């Protein structure tokens, strides 16, 4: 389905597609409404909502922390001037961050 959509979108790329985001938003709303109804009418999920919320909190926290750690690794490599220059990595902070006066 995704591949079909990608192909259709590419073929229609010169057409007007302003309505697309609206259609996507409307379908997301409908699906979340349906998810809500499904959750609300399911006693087992409603009874476990606090546990599902806790699971969500733990996953969200760990996912966020680990991506921050990954960013810190990148940051320290940039800061330390990439001593492992073997791969030609000479990224510097200024390449990631456009300084205001540099524009």
């Amino acid at each position, binding site marked *: 389905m995704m591949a079909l959509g990608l192909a259709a979108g590419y073929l229609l790329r010169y057409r007007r597609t302003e309505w697309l985001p609206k259609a996507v938003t409307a379908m997301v709303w409908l699906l979340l409404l349906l998810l809500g109804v499904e959750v609300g009418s399911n006693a087992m999920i409603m009874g476990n909502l606090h546990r599902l919320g806790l699971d969500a*909190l733990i*996953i969200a926290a760990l996912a966020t922390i680990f991506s921050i750690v*990954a960013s810190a690794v990148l940051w320290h490599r940039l800061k330390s001037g990439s001593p492992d220059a073997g791969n030609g990595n000479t990224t510097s902070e200024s390449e990631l961050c456009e300084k205001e006066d540099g524009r």
Partner: protein
Amino acid sequence: MRGSIVIVAMFVVGVIAGAMGLAEIPEQSDVSFYVLCALIFFVGMSIGSDTGTLRSFKRLNPRLFALPVLTIAGTIAGSAMAALILPHSATDCMAVGSGLAYYSLSSVLITESRGADLGVVALLANILREIFTLLLAPLLARYVNPLAPIAAGGATTADTTLPIISRASGAGYVPLSIAHGFVCDFSVPFLVSFLCTL
């Protein structure tokens, strides 16, 4: 911001309607499956027709892509760790995490392939990630590094969390933040559906 409130409101209205028995989904209903197919098709269509964004990616410094790749890798690693303490399988946790704070799309994708309970976890987890980012961005930028708020924001760094990132990390990080948001945005449907098939 208004969009996020409407999305949460839709879900809450659905929960209330379902709990009070005002609305009911027949046991063997395929409505949401067909809506989801259409949604995936349109998401694919908007990516495919968006040649402007694709072209602007080519002009960007390819090293900018290191950050979104690390964000995604960190997210998946962190979610896998969550499986150690939670009663969900590692792939379930990774599918939830790989929503990258794009809660609307990831929760409906996961609901369809993994059921409503994991769909709820995905919705809440990814809303929480956006809230964490909005609340913690100034602290992360000051005490960790200016890239940290962008990594935390996942797929939202091109839209909802961009203003706070711009203020916390500095306006110079806006182009990186937008590129990061786009890459993560595009990755979510692929990552979530891939992890759901494992």
